[in-house]
């Protein structure tokens, strides 16, 4: 029950904020990718910086017990990112943004989602043929993070330096870059 309420509240918030941020506007995505408009890059860097900083500070102070969940690194992440990148540039949508804007009744977003459902279906069907190939060979020992997150089975890339200085430093670097990049033109 609590989980359901949380899912509704967080989903509503995420959809609302994604839409207002301009990320759900394919014009903004394409203009970011063809390097004509820095608005969304600034948003993304600021969002990663803010969330990462809050996460590591509050975990460090013991304020929260965060639910770290890191995905495995394997060859398919790279190959998948190549295919994903092509589709993203072509359409100007990614998954979250297409869902948020489909909620407004935008037709091309619905078509994108239909294409996505077919893509997911095809993947589901071919998975048994590709699962034993090099695509699923692990990289960096699988689940890996740059810093020690306190989760014992994650492989840590940068050891011997305090978690806060690396994670916090990266987060602040992202925020600084977000501020330095030129402000966007109005659409």
């Amino acid at each position, binding site marked *: 029950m609590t989980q359901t309420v949380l899912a509704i509240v967080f989903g509503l918030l995420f959809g609302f904020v994604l839409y207002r941020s301009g990320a759900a506007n394919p014009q903004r995505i394409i203009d970011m990718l063809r390097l004509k408009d820095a608005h969304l890059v600034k948003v993304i860097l600021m969002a990663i910086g803010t969330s990462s900083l809050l996460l590591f500070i509050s975990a460090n102070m013991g304020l929260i017990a965060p639910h770290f969940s890191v995905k495995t690194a394997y060859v398919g992440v790279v190959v998948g990112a190549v*295919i994903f990148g092509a589709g993203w540039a072509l359409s100007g949508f990614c998954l979250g943004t297409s869902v948020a804007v489909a909620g407004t009744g935008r037709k091309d977003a619905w078509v994108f989602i239909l294409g996505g*459902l077919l893509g997911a279906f095809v993947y589901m069907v071919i998975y048994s043929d590709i699962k034993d190939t090099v695509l699923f060979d692990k990289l960096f020992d699988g689940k890996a993070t740059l810093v020690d997150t306190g989760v014992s089975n994650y492989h840590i890339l940068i050891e011997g330096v305090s978690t806060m200085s690396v994670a916090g430093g990266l987060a602040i670097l992202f925020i600084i870059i977000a501020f330095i990049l030129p402000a966007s033109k109005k659409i």
Partner: protein
Amino acid sequence: MIGFLRNREWNWLSSGILLGLVFFVTVAVVKPIGVSTQFVILDGIVWNSISKDLVVKDEKAKKGYSSPNTYLNKSGGKYAKNIANPVNYSFIFVIAMFMGGFLAYRLQSSPDSKEDRSMPKVWRDNFGSSSTKRYLFVFLGGFLVLVGARLAGGCSSGHMMSGMMQTSVSGYMFAIVTFLVAVPTARILYKR
């Protein structure tokens, strides 16, 4: 406050901070945000309603369900279980995202132009205003994005945002490769 909520688009700073807060709160309270898995679940629900034996109860499976489909059966039948019981956190989250977008659009003080809502201007400038053409390529785009996201095990939300905030190596890999491909693709496709 009300005026802020009704703005058509927020500036980058407010957008970035609020988006960051949503990602932080979800990791702090439940788990990182992810969207692409739910496309598999929805497909599975439809498929299962046509062929009843796609997902079956199986006490030997770790999650209590198994499937003749290898993908749905992996990780102890995790996806199979979610198809059998779609009312769970991740699925409702995505449904609520639709409503979040709808709400944002309805509350907006000035409407978007009809033209911009049918297709982005940059598309029109490069490929003309045929909606059939736009739909065809957007469909292909959606297909590629989902195949890519499933192969990679996540998308911009799961890998890029949620991953990088946790300093996940796979998140950095995904983000870097995605931009390395998407930027030249967009520059070639959209010259005007």
